[in-house]
């Protein structure tokens, strides 16, 4: 058998809980060619450089092999000028300059949501912090931001789970079981799309609260097409919580693994903002992004990425690069100069980052303040299948109670 590259090993499900030793090996070759002709970039400097290189496309339609992707033709898989225009058309219903208050106005709601989830735990001694906290919090928030009825959460949750499970970039992609999962994806995505198309149609007839309604009823000269709204709506509903779920789950997990840091945060709540940045660096919610490729030969770190080659930018590895972060495997809530790439950089910099940060800060802050004597039950916990949106499926914690 041919030996697997560090990247392939990092992508194996068995290593999901801890891909970092493989990343470490991977970084010895900052730009590493894989047997399938793709290039994996794992060092901080090179990742950042390519994120800003206008010869790198994010649009898979420009690749010779044009793989299919549930997020095709959304802002995350478009290049300028399309990208800039579409992003702006969406942004104006979410953030400054047009909507400077949207996110700030949600703060009380976010506080209430996470507060109630903790209230619901009263009287319990064992809690799954994924199912009872990290998942319901962000999903409720994103539904309210976008204008998706909360009753539909179980439906789209199923579609999203199935779509995520079916996406595999590792050596297990060809296992029969995985192939079955992959085969199910298109139907799941189609149903998801149909659900959103219906919802958006409804908002067209009768405007309501939230971004979706704003986007369909945008009277400005720069309206989005129905198709584009539906595709981007899926992206937002999906990316708007999956990443935050994993971030909050990982934050709980890692604080429990590092009692000194948890204690520090308890004593000095002002560390919550830099602390969440460190938690983001420590376990990037998006481990890598798979849609980029080279439009020209690009020379970087002594390697030439040939025109047409797929490029994987490994954020999860870049954020643990010792050339950039001193002692990268140490969780240090007071880390100075913590410019991680957990939300990427450049034009595809995460659109929802300010909202996600606020959610994570609130969730982690409340967790630290209210949960009494939390102890991890299972370490490592079971992980979800997906490699891009990597996170624990459950985080069981024994607790003494919930403070008011």
């Amino acid at each position, binding site marked *: 058998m041919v030996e697997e590259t560090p990247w392939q090993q990092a992508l194996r499900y068995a290593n999901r809980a801890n891909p970092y030793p493989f990343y470490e090996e991977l970084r010895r070759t900052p730009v590493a060619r894989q047997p399938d002709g793709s290039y994996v970039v794992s060092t901080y400097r090179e990742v950042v450089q390519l994120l800003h290189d*206008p010869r790198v*496309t994010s649009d898979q339609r*420009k690749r010779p092999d044009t793989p299919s992707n549930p997020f095709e033709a959304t802002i995350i898989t478009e290049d*300028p000028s399309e990208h800039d225009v579409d992003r702006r058309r969406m942004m104006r219903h979410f953030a400054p300059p047009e909507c400077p208050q949207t996110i700030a106005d949600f703060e009380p709601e976010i506080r209430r949501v996470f507060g109630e989830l903790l209230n619901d735990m009263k009287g319990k001694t064992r809690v799954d912090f994924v199912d009872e906290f990290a998942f319901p919090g962000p999903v409720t928030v994103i539904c309210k931001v976008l204008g998706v009825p909360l009753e539909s959460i179980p439906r789209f949750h199923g579609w999203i789970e199935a779509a995520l499970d079916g996406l595999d970039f590792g050596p297990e992609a060809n296992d029969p079981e995985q192939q079955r999962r992959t085969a199910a994806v298109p139907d799941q995505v189609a149903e998801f799309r149909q659900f959103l198309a219906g919802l958006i149609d409804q908002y067209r007839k009768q405007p309501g609260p939230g971004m979706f309604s704003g986007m369909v009823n945008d009277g400005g000269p720069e309206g989005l097409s129905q198709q584009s709204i539906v595709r981007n709506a899926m992206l937002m509903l999906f990316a708007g919580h999956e990443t935050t779920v994993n971030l909050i789950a990982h934050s709980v997990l890692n604080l429990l693994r590092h009692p000194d840091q948890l204690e520090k945060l308890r004593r000095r709540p002002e560390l919550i903002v830099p602390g969440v940045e460190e938690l983001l660096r420590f376990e990037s919610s998006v481990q890598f992004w798979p849609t980029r490729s080279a439009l020209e030969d690009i020379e970087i770190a002594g390697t030439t990425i040939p025109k047409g080659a797929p490029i994987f930018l490994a954020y999860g590895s870049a954020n643990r690069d010792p050339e950039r972060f001193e002692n990268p495997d140490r969780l240090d809530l007071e880390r100075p100069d913590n410019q991680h790439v957990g939300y990427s950089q450049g034009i595809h*910099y995460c659109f929802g980052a300010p909202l996600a940060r606020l959610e994570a800060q609130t969730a982690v802050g409340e967790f630290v303040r209210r949960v009494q004597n939390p102890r991890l039950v299972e370490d490592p916990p079971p992980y979800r299948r997906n490699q891009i949106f990597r996170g624990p499926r459950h985080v069981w914690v024994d607790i003494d109670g919930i403070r008011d």
Partner: protein
Amino acid sequence: MTVPATVAELVRQFRANGRIVIVGASLAGLRAAEALRAEGFTGSVTIIGDEPYEPYDRPPLSKQVLKGWVPADHTKLPRLREVNAQWRLGVTATGLDRAAKQVRLADGEQIPYDRLLIATGTRARQWPNPDEAALEGVYSLRSRDDAAQLQKALAAPPSRVVVIGAGFIGSEVASVCRELDLPVTVVERGSAPLVGALGGVIGEIAAEMHRDHGVDLRCGLGVSSLEGDSGGHVRRAHLSDGTTVDADVVVASLGSIRNVEWLEGAGLASGFWGVGCDAGGRAFDINGVVTDSIYVAGDVARSPHVLYEYQFLAMEHWDNAVLGAEAAAHNMVNLEPHYRPHLLLPGFWSGQFGLNIKSVGVPPFGDEIVFTQGSVKERRFAAAYGRRGRIVAAVAFDHGKWLEYYGKLIEQSGPFPPPPPGWDHPPDMKPIPAEFPQPGVPTAIPDVVLTGHDPSERGAEFRPRPR
């Protein structure tokens, strides 16, 4: 003890008990003080500032403050850490005695120092005719007080505003006026706005921007005089082409003057162009010899930049004040092998007419420009500046996220024109002349003469130029 060990011991003692004085209590002064503490300096830090206020931020003054979004007194700079300094605010430093190592204050006090940081920045160049400048309704914009007064005047509202000079600040003021729906006339001696900073090609685009937003833009013209009414309020500007513009608010945005007068006689390489220093922020004396105890940072500093043929650059930008202050602070409390250069890639941002303008590098160092990304017509683009086949700067209009890429190319002396982007590029990517004006010859610079004869007595001296 060996000599190096003695020196190291001295530095250790200095870090523990030394006296550092910072003159200039603004961005560079504050960040330097914070950096000194971050470096572990536990001696005394005294910060002297002639403004009565704690350090505040200037960029919002010509933007959010003028629009009335943020009151002028809500611009205090955030504190990054405890500086534990003795603040001497509202008092001007009037002299420097290098022999006695003392800073003289206007109230007669002398403040001794072991190391000194000069961070006195610049001030706005006032309208040259003092009587006209004293008319009510004539403003310039540098300080918090300036911004508060001008904001009040704009809110009045005036019937028309005349802005003299269309550099960054003048353009920002004009833009705010239009946002407030005030009639505004901009008079610019050059061929277009921003020409000095970004060249004529970009200047033309800026000019269109002004006009599209309803600014009455008059280029290639000067204001020759300002006329007041009997109550001493400005009411009219006379232009060099013989025309007049009626206005009740006039904003002179004529560039800046470096605050170096207090250094006169101190024997430093200071003057019209700022205080010369090495790339580590160590001031040069008048002979061009580096000093050991005097450092400079921020708008008032001028140092050689390796990327730009070691030319002395003064960079009046926010980043430069912050990073220059940090480098100077580091060097003040460390030993030679650990000195750090301040090798910033200069950068600037400005907000005007709903657009974000950003540049990296030194555009006037280039003589050619090429549009590389986006569309000039849609006013969202990036362009690179080149000189002799090498990229030296870039500018972006609503395309700021790409500057990092150009910055990297500039740092690496990348080729000009740069490698073409894979998408969204203008149809014609041919470099054209960037059209910078010939560097003007500044007036009123003193003559420098060499004195002494023996090598050991040789020295330089400034002599005021006879008029």
